[in-house]
Protein backbone atom coordinates (compact mmCIF):
# COMPACT_ATOMS: atom_id res chain seq x y z
CA UNK A 1 0.00 0.00 0.00
CA UNK A 2 1.10 3.55 -0.63
CA UNK A 3 2.12 5.58 2.43
CA UNK A 4 -0.88 7.11 4.12
CA UNK A 5 -1.69 10.73 3.55
CA UNK A 6 -3.07 12.83 6.37
CA UNK A 7 -6.31 11.75 7.99
CA UNK A 8 -9.16 13.79 6.52
CA UNK A 9 -12.05 12.20 8.37
CA UNK A 10 -12.52 9.58 11.02
CA UNK A 11 -14.97 7.60 13.09
CA UNK A 12 -13.91 6.43 16.57
CA UNK A 13 -16.00 3.83 18.38
CA UNK A 14 -19.16 5.06 16.71
CA UNK A 15 -22.55 3.62 17.60
CA UNK A 16 -25.85 4.46 15.97
CA UNK A 17 -29.21 2.98 16.81
CA UNK A 18 -32.60 3.38 15.11
CA UNK A 19 -35.12 2.32 17.73
CA UNK A 20 -34.47 -1.36 18.36
CA UNK A 21 -32.11 -1.71 15.41
CA UNK A 22 -28.41 -1.26 16.07
CA UNK A 23 -27.19 0.14 12.75
CA UNK A 24 -23.56 0.73 13.72
CA UNK A 25 -21.91 -1.25 16.47
CA UNK A 26 -18.56 0.35 17.24
CA UNK A 27 -17.03 1.57 13.98
CA UNK A 28 -13.42 2.79 13.74
CA UNK A 29 -12.43 4.16 10.39
CA UNK A 30 -9.96 6.71 9.07
CA UNK A 31 -10.01 8.29 5.64
CA UNK A 32 -6.62 9.31 4.22
CA UNK A 33 -5.70 11.89 1.61
CA UNK A 34 -4.86 10.36 -1.75
CA UNK A 35 -6.75 7.15 -1.05
CA UNK A 36 -9.89 5.64 -2.54
CA UNK A 37 -11.80 3.67 0.06
CA UNK A 38 -14.53 1.34 -1.13
CA UNK A 39 -17.18 0.66 1.47
CA UNK A 40 -18.80 -2.68 0.71
CA UNK A 41 -21.47 -4.69 2.40
CA UNK A 42 -24.92 -6.15 1.86
CA UNK A 43 -27.97 -3.90 2.14
CA UNK A 44 -28.60 -2.86 5.71
CA UNK A 45 -24.97 -3.41 6.75
CA UNK A 46 -24.54 0.24 7.76
CA UNK A 47 -22.88 1.83 4.70
CA UNK A 48 -25.48 4.56 4.29
CA UNK A 49 -25.51 5.30 8.02
CA UNK A 50 -21.69 5.58 8.04
CA UNK A 51 -21.78 8.09 5.20
CA UNK A 52 -24.69 10.03 6.72
CA UNK A 53 -22.68 10.43 9.95
CA UNK A 54 -19.61 11.68 8.06
CA UNK A 55 -21.79 14.17 6.15
CA UNK A 56 -23.37 15.47 9.35
CA UNK A 57 -26.84 14.31 8.29
CA UNK A 58 -27.08 12.16 11.42
CA UNK A 59 -25.58 12.39 14.89
CA UNK A 60 -23.82 9.41 16.43
CA UNK A 61 -25.31 7.98 19.64
CA UNK A 62 -21.79 7.22 20.89
CA UNK A 63 -18.21 7.73 19.77
CA UNK A 64 -16.65 10.55 17.79
CA UNK A 65 -17.03 11.63 14.17
CA UNK A 66 -14.59 14.17 12.71
CA UNK A 67 -14.60 15.68 9.25
CA UNK A 68 -11.57 17.79 8.26
CA UNK A 69 -10.75 18.27 11.91
CA UNK A 70 -14.22 19.44 12.93
CA UNK A 71 -17.72 18.33 13.70
CA UNK A 72 -19.36 17.41 10.35
CA UNK A 73 -22.39 19.46 11.32
CA UNK A 74 -20.20 22.59 11.13
CA UNK A 75 -20.69 24.30 7.80
CA UNK A 76 -16.96 25.08 7.51
CA UNK A 77 -15.99 21.40 7.54
CA UNK A 78 -18.47 20.60 4.78
CA UNK A 79 -16.88 23.27 2.55
CA UNK A 80 -14.12 20.73 1.95
CA UNK A 81 -16.32 17.89 0.73
CA UNK A 82 -18.11 16.90 -2.45
CA UNK A 83 -21.18 14.70 -2.37
CA UNK A 84 -23.01 12.46 -4.79
CA UNK A 85 -25.90 10.65 -3.17
CA UNK A 86 -27.86 7.72 -4.54
CA UNK A 87 -31.22 9.38 -5.02
CA UNK A 88 -31.46 13.11 -5.32
CA UNK A 89 -33.94 14.69 -7.71
CA UNK A 90 -32.49 18.02 -8.80
CA UNK A 91 -34.80 20.79 -10.06
CA UNK A 92 -35.81 19.72 -13.56
CA UNK A 93 -36.39 23.18 -14.96
CA UNK A 94 -32.85 24.37 -14.28
CA UNK A 95 -30.09 24.06 -16.87
CA UNK A 96 -26.98 21.98 -16.23
CA UNK A 97 -24.67 25.03 -16.23
CA UNK A 98 -27.05 26.80 -13.81
CA UNK A 99 -26.95 23.85 -11.41
CA UNK A 100 -23.15 23.73 -11.52
CA UNK A 101 -22.90 27.50 -10.92
CA UNK A 102 -25.32 27.21 -8.00
CA UNK A 103 -23.45 24.39 -6.24
CA UNK A 104 -20.06 26.00 -7.04
CA UNK A 105 -21.23 29.14 -5.25
CA UNK A 106 -21.31 27.22 -1.94
CA UNK A 107 -17.53 26.65 -2.04
CA UNK A 108 -14.59 28.99 -1.31
CA UNK A 109 -12.48 28.10 -4.37
CA UNK A 110 -14.53 26.14 -6.89
CA UNK A 111 -13.33 24.94 -10.28
CA UNK A 112 -14.33 26.94 -13.31
CA UNK A 113 -17.46 25.77 -15.10
CA UNK A 114 -15.36 24.65 -18.08
CA UNK A 115 -12.97 22.66 -15.90
CA UNK A 116 -15.80 20.91 -14.04
CA UNK A 117 -17.58 20.06 -17.28
CA UNK A 118 -14.40 18.72 -18.88
CA UNK A 119 -13.51 16.60 -15.87
CA UNK A 120 -17.00 15.07 -15.68
CA UNK A 121 -17.24 14.79 -19.47
CA UNK A 122 -20.51 16.72 -19.71
CA UNK A 123 -19.55 19.66 -21.97
CA UNK A 124 -22.28 18.82 -24.52
CA UNK A 125 -24.93 18.89 -21.77
CA UNK A 126 -24.23 22.32 -20.27
CA UNK A 127 -27.05 24.15 -22.04
CA UNK A 128 -29.65 21.41 -21.58
CA UNK A 129 -32.39 21.41 -18.94
CA UNK A 130 -31.74 18.82 -16.23
CA UNK A 131 -35.21 17.30 -16.60
CA UNK A 132 -34.63 16.60 -20.31
CA UNK A 133 -31.57 14.41 -19.69
CA UNK A 134 -31.46 10.62 -19.62
CA UNK A 135 -30.89 8.86 -16.29
CA UNK A 136 -27.23 8.23 -17.09
CA UNK A 137 -26.67 11.86 -18.12
CA UNK A 138 -28.34 13.07 -14.91
CA UNK A 139 -26.00 10.83 -12.94
CA UNK A 140 -22.99 12.43 -14.65
CA UNK A 141 -24.31 15.90 -13.86
CA UNK A 142 -24.63 14.84 -10.22
CA UNK A 143 -21.01 13.70 -10.39
CA UNK A 144 -20.02 17.11 -11.80
CA UNK A 145 -21.80 18.79 -8.86
CA UNK A 146 -19.82 16.57 -6.47
CA UNK A 147 -16.45 17.65 -7.89
CA UNK A 148 -17.12 21.30 -8.78
CA UNK A 149 -16.08 22.64 -5.35
CA UNK A 150 -12.54 21.18 -5.54
CA UNK A 151 -13.29 18.90 -2.56
CA UNK A 152 -10.54 17.42 -0.41
CA UNK A 153 -12.88 14.58 0.41
CA UNK A 154 -15.33 13.15 -2.09
CA UNK A 155 -18.31 10.94 -1.19
CA UNK A 156 -19.71 8.84 -4.01
CA UNK A 157 -22.71 6.67 -3.26
CA UNK A 158 -23.17 4.16 -6.10
CA UNK A 159 -21.76 6.66 -8.61
CA UNK A 160 -21.97 4.62 -11.80
CA UNK A 161 -25.38 2.94 -11.54
CA UNK A 162 -27.09 3.35 -14.90
CA UNK A 163 -23.95 4.45 -16.76
CA UNK A 164 -22.68 2.75 -19.90
CA UNK A 165 -19.06 1.61 -20.01
CA UNK A 166 -17.51 4.74 -21.60
CA UNK A 167 -19.33 6.99 -19.12
CA UNK A 168 -18.27 4.75 -16.26
CA UNK A 169 -14.65 4.91 -17.41
CA UNK A 170 -14.88 8.70 -17.61
CA UNK A 171 -16.04 8.81 -13.98
CA UNK A 172 -13.24 6.46 -12.94
CA UNK A 173 -10.66 8.61 -14.74
CA UNK A 174 -12.02 11.76 -13.05
CA UNK A 175 -11.83 10.09 -9.64
CA UNK A 176 -8.22 9.11 -10.36
CA UNK A 177 -7.43 12.74 -11.27
CA UNK A 178 -8.87 13.96 -7.99
CA UNK A 179 -6.87 11.38 -6.06
CA UNK A 180 -3.61 12.45 -7.69
CA UNK A 181 -4.49 15.99 -6.61
CA UNK A 182 -4.52 14.60 -3.05
CA UNK A 183 -8.22 14.15 -2.44
CA UNK A 184 -9.65 11.24 -0.48
CA UNK A 185 -12.58 9.36 -1.95
CA UNK A 186 -15.20 7.23 -0.24
CA UNK A 187 -17.06 4.99 -2.61
CA UNK A 188 -19.97 2.68 -2.00
CA UNK A 189 -20.80 0.37 -4.82
CA UNK A 190 -22.52 -2.85 -5.72
CA UNK A 191 -20.15 -3.37 -8.63
CA UNK A 192 -17.21 -5.25 -7.23
CA UNK A 193 -15.43 -4.63 -10.51
CA UNK A 194 -15.66 -0.93 -9.76
CA UNK A 195 -14.14 -1.40 -6.31
CA UNK A 196 -11.41 -3.57 -7.84
CA UNK A 197 -10.56 -0.98 -10.50
CA UNK A 198 -10.75 2.11 -8.35
CA UNK A 199 -10.16 1.37 -4.69
CA UNK A 200 -6.81 1.31 -2.88
CA UNK A 201 -8.56 0.03 0.18
CA UNK A 202 -11.67 -2.03 0.74
CA UNK A 203 -13.64 -1.97 3.92
CA UNK A 204 -16.38 -4.57 4.36
CA UNK A 205 -19.27 -3.79 6.68
CA UNK A 206 -21.55 -6.41 8.05
CA UNK A 207 -24.36 -5.86 10.53
CA UNK A 208 -22.89 -2.56 11.71
CA UNK A 209 -19.32 -3.80 12.14
CA UNK A 210 -16.20 -3.65 10.03
CA UNK A 211 -15.27 -7.25 9.28
CA UNK A 212 -12.41 -6.57 6.88
CA UNK A 213 -10.27 -3.53 6.17
CA UNK A 214 -7.29 -3.63 3.83
CA UNK A 215 -6.12 -3.54 0.24
CA UNK A 216 -8.03 -5.27 -2.54
CA UNK A 217 -5.11 -7.70 -2.77
CA UNK A 218 -5.28 -8.46 0.95
CA UNK A 219 -8.99 -9.12 0.75
CA UNK A 220 -8.50 -11.45 -2.19
CA UNK A 221 -5.79 -13.44 -0.47
CA UNK A 222 -8.12 -14.08 2.45
CA UNK A 223 -9.67 -16.57 0.10
CA UNK A 224 -7.22 -19.42 -0.38
CA UNK A 225 -9.38 -21.21 -2.90
CA UNK A 226 -8.47 -20.85 -6.55
CA UNK A 227 -10.04 -22.47 -9.56
CA UNK A 228 -8.42 -24.79 -12.11
CA UNK A 229 -9.75 -25.53 -15.59
CA UNK A 230 -8.36 -28.01 -18.09
CA UNK A 231 -9.26 -30.42 -20.91
CA UNK A 232 -8.74 -33.96 -19.62
CA UNK A 233 -10.22 -37.43 -19.79
CA UNK A 234 -9.89 -37.96 -16.02
CA UNK A 235 -13.12 -38.86 -14.25
CA UNK A 236 -14.62 -36.17 -12.04
CA UNK A 237 -15.50 -38.67 -9.26
CA UNK A 238 -11.93 -39.93 -9.06
CA UNK A 239 -10.43 -36.42 -8.91
CA UNK A 240 -12.93 -35.40 -6.25
CA UNK A 241 -11.22 -37.76 -3.77
CA UNK A 242 -7.75 -36.21 -4.16
CA UNK A 243 -6.46 -34.24 -1.20
CA UNK A 244 -6.92 -30.50 -1.60
CA UNK A 245 -9.78 -30.78 -4.09
CA UNK A 246 -12.92 -29.08 -2.83
CA UNK A 247 -15.25 -29.23 -5.82
CA UNK A 248 -15.20 -30.81 -9.24
CA UNK A 249 -17.55 -30.31 -12.16
CA UNK A 250 -17.39 -31.52 -15.75
CA UNK A 251 -18.33 -29.16 -18.55
CA UNK A 252 -18.08 -31.10 -21.84
CA UNK A 253 -14.38 -31.74 -22.44
CA UNK A 254 -13.47 -29.34 -19.64
CA UNK A 255 -12.96 -30.26 -16.02
CA UNK A 256 -13.49 -27.45 -13.51
CA UNK A 257 -11.96 -27.73 -10.02
CA UNK A 258 -11.85 -25.60 -6.94
CA UNK A 259 -8.91 -26.15 -4.62
CA UNK A 260 -7.12 -24.75 -1.60
CA UNK A 261 -3.82 -26.50 -2.58
CA UNK A 262 -3.59 -25.56 -6.22
CA UNK A 263 0.09 -26.36 -6.78
CA UNK A 264 -0.07 -29.95 -5.57
CA UNK A 265 -3.35 -30.62 -7.37
CA UNK A 266 -1.91 -29.31 -10.66
CA UNK A 267 1.18 -31.52 -10.24
CA UNK A 268 -1.07 -34.53 -9.66
CA UNK A 269 -3.26 -33.68 -12.66
CA UNK A 270 -0.28 -33.42 -14.99
CA UNK A 271 1.10 -36.71 -13.70
CA UNK A 272 -2.22 -38.54 -14.02
CA UNK A 273 -3.02 -37.33 -17.55
CA UNK A 274 -0.03 -36.64 -19.86
CA UNK A 275 -2.52 -35.59 -22.58
CA UNK A 276 -3.96 -32.79 -20.43
CA UNK A 277 -4.45 -29.49 -22.31
CA UNK A 278 -5.55 -25.89 -21.83
CA UNK A 279 -4.60 -25.63 -18.17
CA UNK A 280 -5.85 -22.42 -16.47
CA UNK A 281 -5.48 -21.36 -12.84
CA UNK A 282 -7.45 -18.35 -11.64
CA UNK A 283 -7.29 -16.46 -8.37
CA UNK A 284 -10.42 -15.80 -6.39
CA UNK A 285 -12.15 -12.61 -7.51
CA UNK A 286 -13.25 -9.89 -5.11
CA UNK A 287 -16.75 -11.26 -5.49
CA UNK A 288 -15.71 -14.64 -4.15
CA UNK A 289 -13.76 -13.02 -1.34
CA UNK A 290 -16.77 -10.94 -0.47
CA UNK A 291 -19.14 -13.91 -0.55
CA UNK A 292 -16.70 -15.90 1.52
CA UNK A 293 -16.63 -13.18 4.18
CA UNK A 294 -20.36 -12.72 4.34
CA UNK A 295 -20.99 -16.48 4.39
CA UNK A 296 -18.48 -16.99 7.23
CA UNK A 297 -20.24 -14.33 9.18
CA UNK A 298 -23.66 -15.78 8.46
CA UNK A 299 -22.43 -19.16 9.71
CA UNK A 300 -20.98 -17.57 12.88
CA UNK A 301 -24.19 -15.73 13.42
CA UNK A 302 -26.20 -18.94 13.17
CA UNK A 303 -23.90 -20.66 15.64
CA UNK A 304 -24.32 -17.74 18.05
CA UNK A 305 -28.04 -17.92 17.66
CA UNK A 306 -28.17 -21.72 18.16
Amino acid at each position, binding site marked *: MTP*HGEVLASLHGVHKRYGALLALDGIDLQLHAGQVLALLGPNGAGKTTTIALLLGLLRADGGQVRLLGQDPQQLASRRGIGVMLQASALPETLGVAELIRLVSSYYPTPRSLAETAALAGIEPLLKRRYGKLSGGQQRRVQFALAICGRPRLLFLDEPTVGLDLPARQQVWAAVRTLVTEGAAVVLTTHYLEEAERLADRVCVLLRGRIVSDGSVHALRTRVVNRSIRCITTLQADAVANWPGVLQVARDGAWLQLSSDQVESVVRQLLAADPQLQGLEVQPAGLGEAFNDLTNDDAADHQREAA
Partner: protein
Amino acid sequence: MNTPANRIETLQPLSSGMSWQRVLAAYLQEIRAECLRYLRSPSFMVPTLLFPATFYLLFAVVLGRSQPADAARFLLGSYATFGVMAPGMFGFGIALAQERENGLLTLKRALPMPPLAYLLGKMVMAMMSALAIVCLLQLLGSLVAGVQLSALQVTRLTLTATLGSLPFCALGLLLGTVVKGSGAPAVVNLVYLPMAVLSGLWFPLKVLPPLLRDLAGIWPSHHLNMLAQGAVGFDTGAAWPHVLWLAVFTVVTTALAAWRLRGHG
Protein backbone atom coordinates in the same frame (compact mmCIF):
# COMPACT_ATOMS: atom_id res chain seq x y z
CA MET B 1 -3.19 1.67 10.32
CA ASN B 2 0.15 3.15 11.24
CA THR B 3 -1.14 6.71 11.57
CA PRO B 4 -1.42 7.80 15.18
CA ALA B 5 -5.01 8.28 16.15
CA ASN B 6 -4.31 11.68 17.68
CA ARG B 7 -3.13 12.98 14.33
CA ILE B 8 -6.68 13.97 13.61
CA GLU B 9 -6.73 16.45 16.45
CA THR B 10 -3.60 18.15 15.12
CA LEU B 11 -4.96 18.51 11.62
CA GLN B 12 -5.55 22.18 11.02
CA PRO B 13 -9.24 22.89 10.88
CA LEU B 14 -10.10 23.89 7.37
CA SER B 15 -10.03 27.66 7.32
CA SER B 16 -13.63 28.68 6.84
CA GLY B 17 -12.12 30.56 3.91
CA MET B 18 -15.31 32.09 2.52
CA SER B 19 -15.18 35.83 2.07
CA TRP B 20 -18.45 37.61 2.79
CA GLN B 21 -18.72 38.41 -0.91
CA ARG B 22 -18.72 34.71 -1.75
CA VAL B 23 -21.28 33.95 0.98
CA LEU B 24 -23.47 36.72 -0.40
CA ALA B 25 -22.99 35.30 -3.90
CA ALA B 26 -24.15 31.90 -2.63
CA TYR B 27 -27.35 33.46 -1.28
CA LEU B 28 -27.95 35.33 -4.54
CA GLN B 29 -27.34 32.20 -6.61
CA GLU B 30 -29.79 30.25 -4.46
CA ILE B 31 -32.44 32.97 -4.83
CA ARG B 32 -31.83 33.19 -8.57
CA ALA B 33 -32.06 29.41 -9.01
CA GLU B 34 -35.24 29.20 -6.97
CA CYS B 35 -36.94 32.01 -8.92
CA LEU B 36 -35.86 30.69 -12.33
CA ARG B 37 -36.97 27.23 -11.40
CA TYR B 38 -40.54 28.32 -10.64
CA LEU B 39 -40.77 30.87 -13.46
CA ARG B 40 -40.15 27.95 -15.80
CA SER B 41 -42.73 25.67 -14.11
CA PRO B 42 -46.11 26.35 -15.75
CA SER B 43 -47.82 24.00 -13.31
CA PHE B 44 -46.88 26.40 -10.51
CA MET B 45 -46.98 29.82 -12.17
CA VAL B 46 -50.15 29.46 -14.26
CA PRO B 47 -52.60 28.60 -11.47
CA THR B 48 -50.85 30.96 -9.06
CA LEU B 49 -51.35 33.95 -11.37
CA LEU B 50 -54.48 32.86 -13.19
CA PHE B 51 -56.77 31.78 -10.35
CA PRO B 52 -56.99 35.11 -8.50
CA ALA B 53 -57.15 37.03 -11.79
CA THR B 54 -59.96 34.83 -13.17
CA PHE B 55 -61.97 34.93 -9.95
CA TYR B 56 -61.55 38.68 -9.77
CA LEU B 57 -62.73 39.17 -13.34
CA LEU B 58 -65.65 36.81 -12.77
CA PHE B 59 -66.92 38.31 -9.51
CA ALA B 60 -65.94 41.96 -9.88
CA VAL B 61 -66.58 42.46 -13.59
CA VAL B 62 -68.93 39.83 -15.02
CA LEU B 63 -71.15 39.38 -11.96
CA GLY B 64 -70.37 42.81 -10.56
CA ARG B 65 -72.74 44.89 -12.68
CA SER B 66 -75.57 44.73 -10.19
CA GLN B 67 -73.35 45.29 -7.13
CA PRO B 68 -72.68 48.53 -5.33
CA ALA B 69 -69.98 50.73 -6.83
CA ASP B 70 -67.49 49.88 -4.11
CA ALA B 71 -67.69 46.12 -4.72
CA ALA B 72 -64.90 45.99 -7.30
CA ARG B 73 -62.59 47.89 -4.93
CA PHE B 74 -63.50 45.61 -2.02
CA LEU B 75 -62.95 42.51 -4.13
CA LEU B 76 -59.57 43.85 -5.26
CA GLY B 77 -58.48 43.74 -1.60
CA SER B 78 -59.87 40.28 -0.92
CA TYR B 79 -58.60 38.65 -4.15
CA ALA B 80 -55.18 40.21 -3.62
CA THR B 81 -55.19 38.50 -0.22
CA PHE B 82 -56.45 35.25 -1.73
CA GLY B 83 -53.79 35.44 -4.46
CA VAL B 84 -50.75 36.14 -2.33
CA MET B 85 -51.54 33.31 0.10
CA ALA B 86 -50.84 30.77 -2.64
CA PRO B 87 -47.16 31.18 -3.58
CA GLY B 88 -46.00 30.80 0.01
CA MET B 89 -48.29 27.93 0.90
CA PHE B 90 -47.73 26.00 -2.32
CA GLY B 91 -44.15 27.07 -2.99
CA PHE B 92 -43.03 26.11 0.50
CA GLY B 93 -45.54 23.44 1.41
CA ILE B 94 -45.48 21.27 -1.67
CA ALA B 95 -41.85 21.86 -2.57
CA LEU B 96 -40.60 21.06 0.93
CA ALA B 97 -42.80 17.94 1.12
CA GLN B 98 -41.43 16.73 -2.21
CA GLU B 99 -37.84 17.68 -1.55
CA ARG B 100 -37.88 15.86 1.77
CA GLU B 101 -38.99 12.76 -0.10
CA ASN B 102 -36.93 12.92 -3.30
CA GLY B 103 -33.56 13.45 -1.63
CA LEU B 104 -32.91 17.05 -2.72
CA LEU B 105 -33.16 18.36 0.84
CA THR B 106 -30.76 15.65 2.05
CA LEU B 107 -28.26 16.59 -0.64
CA LYS B 108 -28.58 20.28 0.19
CA ARG B 109 -28.03 19.55 3.88
CA ALA B 110 -24.89 17.58 3.05
CA LEU B 111 -23.57 20.32 0.75
CA PRO B 112 -22.05 23.45 2.29
CA MET B 113 -25.07 25.56 1.36
CA PRO B 114 -25.41 28.56 3.70
CA PRO B 115 -28.07 27.42 6.19
CA LEU B 116 -30.69 30.07 5.48
CA ALA B 117 -30.23 30.16 1.71
CA TYR B 118 -32.83 27.45 1.16
CA LEU B 119 -35.52 29.34 3.07
CA LEU B 120 -34.50 32.74 1.75
CA GLY B 121 -34.57 31.52 -1.85
CA LYS B 122 -38.13 30.26 -1.49
CA MET B 123 -39.21 33.36 0.44
CA VAL B 124 -37.98 35.71 -2.25
CA MET B 125 -39.64 33.54 -4.90
CA ALA B 126 -42.96 33.74 -2.99
CA MET B 127 -42.68 37.51 -2.57
CA MET B 128 -41.88 38.05 -6.26
CA SER B 129 -44.89 35.92 -7.21
CA ALA B 130 -47.04 37.88 -4.75
CA LEU B 131 -45.81 41.12 -6.30
CA ALA B 132 -46.73 39.86 -9.77
CA ILE B 133 -50.20 38.82 -8.56
CA VAL B 134 -51.03 42.12 -6.87
CA CYS B 135 -49.78 44.12 -9.87
CA LEU B 136 -51.87 42.01 -12.25
CA LEU B 137 -54.97 42.42 -10.09
CA GLN B 138 -54.52 46.18 -9.82
CA LEU B 139 -54.08 46.39 -13.56
CA LEU B 140 -57.33 44.46 -14.10
CA GLY B 141 -59.02 46.55 -11.41
CA SER B 142 -58.17 49.88 -13.00
CA LEU B 143 -58.47 48.89 -16.67
CA VAL B 144 -61.43 46.51 -16.61
CA ALA B 145 -63.33 46.98 -13.35
CA GLY B 146 -62.99 50.76 -13.18
CA VAL B 147 -61.42 50.90 -9.71
CA GLN B 148 -59.66 54.17 -9.02
CA LEU B 149 -56.86 54.13 -6.47
CA SER B 150 -54.54 56.93 -5.41
CA ALA B 151 -50.79 56.48 -5.75
CA LEU B 152 -50.58 56.08 -1.98
CA GLN B 153 -53.26 53.36 -2.02
CA VAL B 154 -51.48 51.51 -4.84
CA THR B 155 -48.19 51.63 -2.91
CA ARG B 156 -49.86 50.49 0.30
CA LEU B 157 -51.71 47.59 -1.31
CA THR B 158 -48.61 46.46 -3.21
CA LEU B 159 -46.47 46.52 -0.08
CA THR B 160 -49.14 44.85 2.07
CA ALA B 161 -49.66 42.05 -0.44
CA THR B 162 -45.97 41.44 -1.10
CA LEU B 163 -44.95 41.34 2.56
CA GLY B 164 -48.25 39.64 3.39
CA SER B 165 -47.10 36.53 1.56
CA LEU B 166 -44.54 35.86 4.35
CA PRO B 167 -46.92 34.48 7.03
CA PHE B 168 -48.15 32.02 4.41
CA CYS B 169 -44.58 31.01 3.60
CA ALA B 170 -44.29 30.10 7.28
CA LEU B 171 -47.56 28.18 7.17
CA GLY B 172 -46.45 26.39 3.99
CA LEU B 173 -43.16 25.52 5.64
CA LEU B 174 -44.95 23.97 8.60
CA LEU B 175 -47.33 22.01 6.33
CA GLY B 176 -44.32 20.80 4.33
CA THR B 177 -42.76 19.35 7.45
CA VAL B 178 -45.97 17.46 8.30
CA VAL B 179 -46.96 15.89 4.96
CA LYS B 180 -44.77 14.03 2.52
CA GLY B 181 -44.60 13.86 -1.26
CA SER B 182 -47.65 13.26 -3.37
CA GLY B 183 -50.22 13.91 -0.62
CA ALA B 184 -49.00 17.48 -0.20
CA PRO B 185 -51.06 19.31 -2.89
CA ALA B 186 -54.31 17.90 -1.48
CA VAL B 187 -53.42 18.81 2.11
CA VAL B 188 -52.31 22.33 1.20
CA ASN B 189 -55.55 22.90 -0.76
CA LEU B 190 -57.54 21.56 2.19
CA VAL B 191 -56.03 24.26 4.35
CA TYR B 192 -55.90 27.01 1.73
CA LEU B 193 -59.43 27.00 0.34
CA PRO B 194 -61.46 26.63 3.58
CA MET B 195 -59.26 29.26 5.23
CA ALA B 196 -59.97 31.66 2.36
CA VAL B 197 -63.71 31.08 2.66
CA LEU B 198 -63.76 31.34 6.46
CA SER B 199 -61.85 34.62 6.34
CA GLY B 200 -64.48 36.19 4.12
CA LEU B 201 -62.36 36.30 0.96
CA TRP B 202 -64.99 34.68 -1.26
CA PHE B 203 -68.22 35.72 0.44
CA PRO B 204 -68.70 38.60 2.85
CA LEU B 205 -68.34 37.43 6.43
CA LYS B 206 -71.92 38.43 7.22
CA VAL B 207 -73.32 35.53 5.15
CA LEU B 208 -71.40 33.00 7.30
CA PRO B 209 -73.04 31.43 10.38
CA PRO B 210 -72.36 33.54 13.52
CA LEU B 211 -70.03 30.95 15.05
CA LEU B 212 -67.77 30.89 11.95
CA ARG B 213 -67.98 34.66 11.66
CA ASP B 214 -66.70 35.04 15.22
CA LEU B 215 -63.90 32.60 14.50
CA ALA B 216 -62.64 34.58 11.49
CA GLY B 217 -60.13 36.33 13.73
CA ILE B 218 -58.08 33.17 14.17
CA TRP B 219 -57.14 32.94 10.47
CA PRO B 220 -54.06 34.83 9.27
CA SER B 221 -55.83 35.47 5.97
CA HIS B 222 -58.52 37.47 7.78
CA HIS B 223 -55.91 39.80 9.23
CA LEU B 224 -54.12 40.22 5.90
CA ASN B 225 -57.50 40.94 4.28
CA MET B 226 -58.20 43.64 6.86
CA LEU B 227 -54.86 45.26 6.01
CA ALA B 228 -55.54 44.98 2.27
CA GLN B 229 -59.01 46.52 2.68
CA GLY B 230 -57.48 49.31 4.73
CA ALA B 231 -54.98 49.87 1.93
CA VAL B 232 -57.69 50.29 -0.72
CA GLY B 233 -59.56 52.79 1.42
CA PHE B 234 -62.06 50.89 3.60
CA ASP B 235 -62.13 51.71 7.28
CA THR B 236 -60.90 48.58 9.05
CA GLY B 237 -59.62 50.30 12.19
CA ALA B 238 -56.02 50.45 13.34
CA ALA B 239 -53.52 48.42 11.32
CA TRP B 240 -51.13 47.53 14.12
CA PRO B 241 -53.19 44.75 15.81
CA HIS B 242 -53.36 42.91 12.47
CA VAL B 243 -49.68 43.46 11.75
CA LEU B 244 -48.79 42.26 15.24
CA TRP B 245 -51.04 39.20 14.89
CA LEU B 246 -49.42 38.26 11.56
CA ALA B 247 -45.91 38.82 12.91
CA VAL B 248 -46.55 36.59 15.93
CA PHE B 249 -48.17 33.95 13.72
CA THR B 250 -45.12 33.99 11.39
CA VAL B 251 -42.60 33.66 14.21
CA VAL B 252 -44.47 30.91 16.06
CA THR B 253 -45.19 28.90 12.90
CA THR B 254 -41.58 29.19 11.68
CA ALA B 255 -40.29 28.11 15.08
CA LEU B 256 -42.59 25.07 15.05
CA ALA B 257 -41.45 24.17 11.54
CA ALA B 258 -37.77 24.59 12.45
CA TRP B 259 -38.29 22.33 15.46
CA ARG B 260 -39.96 19.68 13.30
CA LEU B 261 -37.25 19.89 10.63
CA ARG B 262 -34.51 19.45 13.19
CA GLY B 263 -36.26 16.50 14.79
CA HIS B 264 -37.30 14.65 11.65
CA GLY B 265 -35.04 15.90 8.88
